[in-house]
């Protein structure tokens, strides 16, 4: 109750139970601490099972699992930072895998075209999402759910199964490794770094934080808030498109059914696990990458320990909540920073 009163109202302003210290560094550090903790615990459990979590195979496994979600979560971070969200990513991913595979249709010559077509299509969906949200003033949750459904109908109608065929060279994207690091992970990390730079070093990036922090302030400062949100959604969709390319590379073909993988909600979970504030304006991609890794590590550990698939769901759900609760705890305990007199009765 008391805590509730301390909280800021959801209109503008700082988030509930914020600390007065510098947030982003703090939390990102915490997220990586959590990642390390989970790695350690996982390694111990795996060792107890007579196996090695850090065997080449398992490292490759962890990294591979992280890249697909990674692409989507990086994009999701951008939209969440400007107080939006995207539930259509799964459908975008599916569509792009199909478009890429069909345009390539097995011929090396068409690879660039295939990639371009897929990402172009993704950008268009992102544009539509952005415009529906900004111009038609439809809440992002509904808007992206809607565009997702629209794509689903198209996919179900047009593709009663996998379609198209990528080339041998393109499949490298899904299978090549630089020692233990899969190419897809390298690309994911490159995208992450690019994202971090975008947020830190470009006006567009700064404006994303402004719009997420307080749209009115941003607008009064001459920021084209609509354009910022639209851009974020385009980038998010394109990131999902890259995920679609990875799917195509892994499958050798495009598949509609991948929209059922639940990456929409999982990516949001990853972003929040990464310490980004759901109401926008605070957080970043560095944290998201850690959030993604946490989920990937869990996946691999569960796999090695052959945890019952249903038990997996229970654990994943519980761990996500607990982790986020821990961040929140920490933020609460961090206030008020100003202490004049030692507390406690006397």
């Amino acid at each position, binding site marked *: 109750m008391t805590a509730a009163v301390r909280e800021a109202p959801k209109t503008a302003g700082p988030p509930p139970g914020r600390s007065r210290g510098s947030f982003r560094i703090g939390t990102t550090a915490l997220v990586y601490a959590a990642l390390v903790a989970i790695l350690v615990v996982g390694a111990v459990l795996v060792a107890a099972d007579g196996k090695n979590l850090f065997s080449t195979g398992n490292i490759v496994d962890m990294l591979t699992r992280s890249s697909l979600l990674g692409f989507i979560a990086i994009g999701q971070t951008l939209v969440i930072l400007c107080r939006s969200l995207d539930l259509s990513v799964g459908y975008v991913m599916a569509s792009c895998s199909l478009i890429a595979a069909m345009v390539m249709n097995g011929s090396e010559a068409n690879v660039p075209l295939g990639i371009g077509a897929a990402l172009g299509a993704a950008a268009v969906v992102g544009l539509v999402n952005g415009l529906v949200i900004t111009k038609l003033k439809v809440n992002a949750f509904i808007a992206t759910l809607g565009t997702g459904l629209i794509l689903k109908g198209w996919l179900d109608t047009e593709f009663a199964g996998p379609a198209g065929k990528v080339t041998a060279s393109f499949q490298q994207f899904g299978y090549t490794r630089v020692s233990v690091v899969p190419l897809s992970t390298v690309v994911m990390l490159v995208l992450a770094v690019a994202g971090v730079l975008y947020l830190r070093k470009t006006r567009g990036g700064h404006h994303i934080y402004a719009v997420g922090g307080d749209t009115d302030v941003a607008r009064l400062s001459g920021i084209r808030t609509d354009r910022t949100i639209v851009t974020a959604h385009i980038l998010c969709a394109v990131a999902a498109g890259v995920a679609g390319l990875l799917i195509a590379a892994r499958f050798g073909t495009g598949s509609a059914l991948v929209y059922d993988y639940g990456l929409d909600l999982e990516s949001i979970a990853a972003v929040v696990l990464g310490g980004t504030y759901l109401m926008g304006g605070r957080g970043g991609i560095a944290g998201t990458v850690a959030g993604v890794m946490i989920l990937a590590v869990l996946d691999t550990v569960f796999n090695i320990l052959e945890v019952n698939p249903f038990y997996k769901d229970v654990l994943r759900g519980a761990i996500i909540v607990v982790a986020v609760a821990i961040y929140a705890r920490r933020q609460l305990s961090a206030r008020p920073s100003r202490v004049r*007199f*030692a507390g406690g009765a006397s």
Partner: protein
Amino acid sequence: MTEPLLEMTGIGKSFLGVGVLHGVDLTVREGEVHALVGENGAGKSTLMKILAGVHRADAGTVALDGRPVSFAHPVEAQKAGVSTVFQEFNLLPERTVAENVWLGREPRRRGLVDSRRMAADTAALLDGLGVTDIRPSTRIRSLSVARQQVVEIVKAISHDARIIAMDEPTAALADREVGLLYDLVARLKERGVAILYVSHRLKEIFDLADRITVLKDGRLVDTMDTAATNPDELVKKMVGRPISAFFPDPLPGNGTGEVRLEIAGGGNTQLDGIDLTVHGGEILGLGGLQGSGRTEIAHALFGVAPFTRGRISVDGKPVRIRSPRKAVGAGLALVTEDRKTEGLALNQTVLANARLVLDAVRPGSASRRAKRIPEILAALELSSRGTGQEVRYLSGGNQQKVVLAKWLATDPAVIVLDEPTRGIDVGAKQAVYGLMRRLAADGVAIVLISSELPELIGMADRVCVLHDGRIAGELPGGSAEEDVMALATGHTPAAAGPTTPQTPDGAAKGAQS
């Protein structure tokens, strides 16, 4: 006499068909401080927002240097040299000072944001204004209200503004900190910058303004030289009727009944050794600088950040107040410092807000008790389109009346008013003062927290002054402002020299929270 820099003529504006401005004329000259005054809802902010390009006027023209202009967006206005410090804060709490100042105009090198230069330029601006203790890399949310106000102004001048419009820049500041603003205004004048200054504080207006324009009900009443007028005349023009005595005299029955609120040795992380007693029918004033802990006392008393030491008793009964709910139960009421974030559910109706406490704490009898609300609102002379109107459409003063009604509906034994007249007009202030007297007459114990010394001294029977979380001393009502300031700044009354609010160093000290 310099020729007008800004000329607004025949400005008209209506919202939803309701006229808010009617043919208002306003001229501002280079290097002058031009005060814009009027009651709540007179149209001051609207006029400023038209100048700033937030609203577009329905009628009339705006001319800069004789050239007609029409700003479609604040940024256009800024490019033309017109900057505005809006009534509401326009900073991003999660971003740094520099990022806020240059928001939307981040300097770039080879396409990328040049953080270093951003910081340097900000530092330069701060120096230029003699502000020494704000770092460009500080996050806004860790700054006190006063410093945030300074950042707002730095942001405004960073556009090389020729006109800076300030809408109630001191509303959130304690008198002590106003000095810092006075200083800024002086420096800007030197640079030949014209300042359009909206305030409800007559003292400031007469301290700062060269000329004063009075609005009433969206119409121009008069524009006059400050030298040629005086507070009484000004108030008369604003309110349209003479204000007999600004602070109403105590009513029969005011004064001291038996003790209703007693705090003994109250303390927590922000406060220590707080001893207070308030009698029925008495108004106890709490003075002090920004950050001195007045709001903390209110919060502690109300269970938001409870006392961890000491005892509280209401009407002789010891009470343990761990939450606002308990506080209300114990017969306390708190009119919070910040209407919008702590006082009102802006999307709800006047009635819904007015009965919120009843609904929250006395669900059983809420509907019955709520029947009194219309008459309470009437007594407060609320002007709204009925109790069904959403409160966010009301002007500041009227919103405050809704907050008051909400608490009066609970018949409190003790009512704590934290900055009750912040940003409301003389008319509304009078209403609030009158109300306080009537409540006192009914035997309610009142604690008044105010940063406006005249108000504090004029209304309180006793004034307790806080300094850094402790009670520095107590003074009788009607004491001299100097004595209060002395205690507030830590001097003893004896040693209290002429600490006038204006001194920058004093200001710096005063703002240390």
